[in-house]
């Protein structure tokens, strides 16, 4: 005979939350990552709906509107060739977010499979890949990205490739380290004993367990990639004129600091806010994914 008191805990088991839901519950309890998510949500909205949100054409020049301070007509003012800065900041979101996501995707798609291979196979493959990683990490990030972008030729897509390739060793090293930790666990051994092929063990049994660490690093790397894209565009190696990018806007702003300081404020603030938000989300995710948290 089963009485009600015994059934209740069983029901609890049925309504147990999924790992994703648990992470979301922990994340949404904290103010900092929620702030980050809202800001990034807004930026994504800006990027997608730029033609609807931007009040003016971001590349339309007007000699009668050169370097006008912020006003009700031009909320962020105008730049050295009379373009509306607000519209340029809104459209610039596209270049920055795009660069952030694409370059990290490039890094993930090369770094994670190689890291899995290095960590799982070990031996010569691991030694070879690890030394290559060391070599790439030895070159300062921006300098290597500049060198790559310079040799590939200046354009936004080449900047993204350069940043992506430069970010790759970080994911390779992280994935490798995580795999080495996980592969000695008993459940991996059990999976092997049952006769699973290596690729299946790596993809089905190891990968889900190292995914959280990769997710956190990917979020933080987007922040770094956005700064790097802005830096390359600032140097003229990213988005090419007249198309707007926050970095190149700062470059032209530098020449008019004494008579049009507003030109430097808004694009810089946009970079700062987006980078800060990704950092907050990354830190929040790390805490939320920590198994010691409740």
């Amino acid at each position, binding site marked *: 005979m089963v009485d009600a008191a015994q059934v209740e805990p069983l029901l609890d088991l049925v309504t147990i939350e999924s790992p994703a839901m648990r992470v979301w519950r922990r994340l949404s309890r904290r103010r900092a990552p929620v702030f980050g998510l809202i800001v990034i949500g807004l930026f994504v909205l800006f990027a997608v709906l730029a033609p609807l949100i931007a009040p003016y054409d971001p590349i339309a020049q007007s000699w009668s509107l050169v370097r006008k301070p912020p006003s009700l007509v031009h909320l962020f003012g105008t730049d050295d060739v009379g373009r509306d800065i607000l519209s340029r900041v809104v459209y610039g979101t596209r270049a920055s977010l795009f660069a952030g996501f694409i370059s990290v995707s490039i890094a993930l798609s090369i770094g994670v499979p190689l890291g899995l291979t290095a960590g799982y196979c070990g031996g010569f493959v691991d030694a070879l890949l690890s030394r290559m990683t060391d*070599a790439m990490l*030895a070159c*300062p990030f921006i300098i290597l990205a500049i*060198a790559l972008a*310079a*040799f590939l*030729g200046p354009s936004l897509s080449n900047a993204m490739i350069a940043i992506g390739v430069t970010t790759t060793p970080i994911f390779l090293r992280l994935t490798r380290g995580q795999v080495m930790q996980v592969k000695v666990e008993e459940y991996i051994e059990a999976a092997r004993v049952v006769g699973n092929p290596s690729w299946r063990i790596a993809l089905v049994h190891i990968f889900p367990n190292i995914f959280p660490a990769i997710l956190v690093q990917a979020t933080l790397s987007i922040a770094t990639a956005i700064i790097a894209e802005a830096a390359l565009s600032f140097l003229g190696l990213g988005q090419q004129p007249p198309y707007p990018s926050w970095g190149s806007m700062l470059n032209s*702003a530098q020449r008019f600091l004494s008579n049009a300081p507003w030109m430097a404020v808004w694009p810089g603030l946009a970079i700062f806010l987006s980078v*800060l938000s990704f950092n907050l989300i990354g830190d929040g995710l790390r805490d939320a994914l920590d198994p010691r948290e409740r």
Partner: protein
Amino acid sequence: MLKFVGKRLLQLIPTLFFVSVLIFSLQQLLPGDPALVMAGEERDPQVIEQIRKQYRLDQPLPLQYVYWVKGVFSGNLGESMRVKEPVLNLILEKLPVTIQLASMAIIIALTIGISTGVVAAVKKNTVWDYAANVFALWGISTPNFWLGIMLIFLFSVQLGWLPASGYVRLRDNWEASITATILPAFVLGNAIAAVLMRHTRSAMLQVLESDYVRTARAKGLLERRIIVRHALSNALTPIITLSALEFGTLLSGAVLTEQIFTIPGFGKLVVDAVFNRDYAVVQGVVLVTATTFIILNLLADIAYHLVNPRLRA
């Protein structure tokens, strides 16, 4: 210890090999015929043929690599296409400027980073701790080229206290030299200060909970003495070695900072080289920075082993 150093030195060989392959293969990324790209505006077939001969572009790729590495080992990093000077000379000429800037930045970063980190740890979960954490987040998220521009606006354009650009050599006039580099050094040190603050805070928190600190407290020592003599001196070791690893961040930052403040250092050299399509200079700069980083990394590792008795076998 000797075995450890030997093992680390052996590991250097393949790493350096891959660094050299990486830098050499940059050249292969040039779209089209490298001789044509290097020639720039020049279209005279004789000149192009000469470039092809001079850079051995007519030889097979592995042979080109061997020649290049041979050159590097004899101190020949190639010649600048633009100024017709050996790349090594150009680098050696610009290096002292960047070293001065980087040293000042590291001093600023250590001072700010360690002091805020100690305060944050000692006053954990108070307003001070939150303020220090906000400072760290701000430092990590602010692009240094924007910070530089805003500081120029404030201190040079508005207040007129500091020069907006330019550089004076330390031995020519040390006061003018410091004044000219203090702003860029702060910009450069800021992000590193933020990283060091986070490390200091966590290292201090760990040490403050240790038994010997509790013993010191039980003995009735002054709190300040405990924090400085007992806790900080122990927490400092990993922080100092970590700051050596920030060298890469420092050089990356220097590229943009020197550009903004028009300081004729290493960073400006590489950016100018990129725009002049002076590819040998770009390769030379990457090679020198990577090698320096690898050596510093090794030294930091050895230093860490030396000062940490637990790692000494």
